[in-house]
């Protein structure tokens, strides 16, 4: 029998300073996801393929709820649809007890279609149309007001409604996070938020039920949440004492980091991201000290996105080619690129070979299959010697990729959910040419002519 082949490798040993990229190999074979063989999944559903673990989704949700409920008595999570609005994913979270947090009419419709009761949908976002506001009001959802134009639009609408629309005010505030996210909602420090609140209460036409903020994303410090919780609690106190309006809930948004590694970070995300317990501790501690009587404690709403779904998602794919670049670097071309892995602009995603390999590794650039210069997944990663046809697993891709992916140059692949027993269920079909052609229309004058065009005369 012939021996196993591994292509020849020769690597220059550098005596210079430690190479930040090449120092740590990610080369550990990952042949299964939740007990399902990568090879089988790709054979059945095609390559590339997104895979979600239902077990991990539920575990994440339950851990998050536990982190907050063990510290604060009244907690409600609202699933941030934009993070991953596949119906199957949303339904897992809704089954676990999550409300829906949506930021567009489209997401609002998805929440309704997923069976979320109107009052359990929180409608955020700067771009709600009049018709969308009306629908949300009629369904008794909470409209999170973003700007004065929206407030006045809703006040106008409310005149013709049988029931007062329920609203919350989105507040942006200085929590020590810079650059400050001040483009959403009403600013606290310059009095805008108080102005909006006063108008809402004075109008008598809207019911103010909540205060909301979302201070940033992938926050690597817990402190700003303490500041934000304190400022929202103070604002709620003012509502009660000055306007005689008790606030039912404080919504602290999302922004909790997953354990991905940010691009350019020296340490892996698993070492740097505070846990949800640490965030919960700061928030709960602040609210307990804010002066509410126990029976008056407002409901704490959280719109955690990426931390609940990122590590439940995998992208499986195949090596298309390896080549050497002009400067001698190794390059590996995969069958998925930034079109599917949007988050590779933020993260150095961990990527593992799906087969067994020797201990020899090399540094390689990872490119996608787009014929575009931007299509680079990793600038340098240390991997075993991959060949055409080898399969790989990208980790922690559950957040934002399956919503921000682009239909660009190629079609988007299927998505599979592995249930608690590790059985695969397709939850989104791979796109087809017919599916995309459906939306296009060709004007009559570009359709084939009844008479073949005459050939232009050529000079004799």
């Amino acid at each position: 029998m012939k021996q196993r082949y591994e292509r020849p490798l020769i690597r220059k040993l550098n005596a210079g300073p430690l190479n930040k990229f090449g120092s740590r190999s990610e080369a550990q074979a990952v042949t299964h996801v939740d007990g399902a063989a990568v090879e089988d999944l790709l054979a059945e559903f095609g390559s590339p393929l997104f895979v979600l673990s239902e077990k991990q989704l539920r575990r994440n949700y339950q851990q998050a709820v536990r982190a907050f409920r063990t510290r604060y008595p009244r907690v409600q999570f609202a699933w941030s649809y934009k993070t991953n609005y596949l119906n199957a994913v949303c339904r897992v979270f809704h089954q676990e007890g999550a409300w829906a947090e949506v930021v567009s009419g489209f997401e609002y419709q998805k929440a309704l279609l997923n069976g979320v009761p109107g009052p359990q949908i929180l409608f955020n976002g700067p771009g709600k149309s009049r018709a969308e506001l009306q629908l949300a009001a009629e369904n008794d959802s909470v409209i999170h007001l973003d700007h004065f134009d929206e407030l006045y639009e809703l006040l106008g609408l409310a005149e013709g409604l049988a029931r007062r629309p329920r609203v919350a005010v989105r507040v942006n505030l200085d929590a020590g996070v810079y650059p400050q996210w001040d483009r959403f909602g009403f600013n606290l420090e310059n009095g805008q938020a108080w102005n909006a609140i006063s108008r809402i209460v004075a109008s008598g036409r809207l019911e103010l039920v909540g205060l909301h903020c979302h201070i940033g994303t992938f926050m690597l410090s817990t402190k700003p949440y303490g500041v934000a919780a304190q400022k929202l609690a103070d604002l709620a106190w003012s509502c009660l004492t000055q306007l005689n309006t008790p606030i039912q809930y404080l919504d602290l948004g999302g922004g909790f980091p997953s354990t991905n590694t940010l691009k350019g970070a020296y340490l892996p995300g698993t070492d740097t991201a505070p846990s949800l317990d640490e965030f919960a501790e700061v928030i709960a501690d602040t609210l307990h000290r804010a002066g509410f009587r126990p029976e008056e404690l407002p409901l704490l709403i959280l719109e955690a996105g990426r931390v609940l779904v990122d590590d439940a998602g995998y992208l499986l794919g195949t090596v298309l080619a390896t080549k050497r670049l002009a400067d001698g670097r190794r390059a590996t071309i995969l069958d998925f690129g930034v079109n599917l892995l949007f988050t590779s602009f933020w993260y150095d995603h961990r990527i593992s070979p799906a087969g067994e390999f020797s201990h020899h590794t090399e540094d390689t650039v990872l490119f996608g299959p787009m014929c575009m210069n931007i299509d680079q997944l990793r600038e340098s990663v240390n991997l075993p010697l991959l060949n055409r046809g080898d399969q790989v697993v990208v980790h922690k891709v559950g957040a934002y990729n399956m919503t921000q992916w682009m239909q660009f140059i190629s079609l988007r692949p299927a998505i599979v959910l592995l249930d608690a027993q590790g059985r695969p269920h397709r939850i989104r079909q791979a796109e087809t040419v017919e599916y995309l052609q459906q939306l296009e229309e060709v004007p009559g004058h570009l359709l084939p002519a009844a008479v073949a065009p005459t050939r232009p005369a050529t000079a004799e």
Partner: protein
Amino acid sequence: MKLRKNIATSETGFIFNPATGDSFAANGLATEILQLLKQDRSPADIKTHLLNRYDVEPRQLEKDWDDLVAQLRDFQLLD
């Protein structure tokens, strides 16, 4: 094609070029190829030997061979 005379290669895959002071690490197959080159075996001869010994398509070996040679040249290990 010839490996430079004074290049030191060990069986464990450590390679040293006294002319430049550079050192290199090679995996099993690269080490084997370097040893065979040192014995002045011709490329065609070495490739036939490898095809008999390893589970690899000629096409793949050809591609990897060319890549290795380019690297050896780049690292100034060839005459």
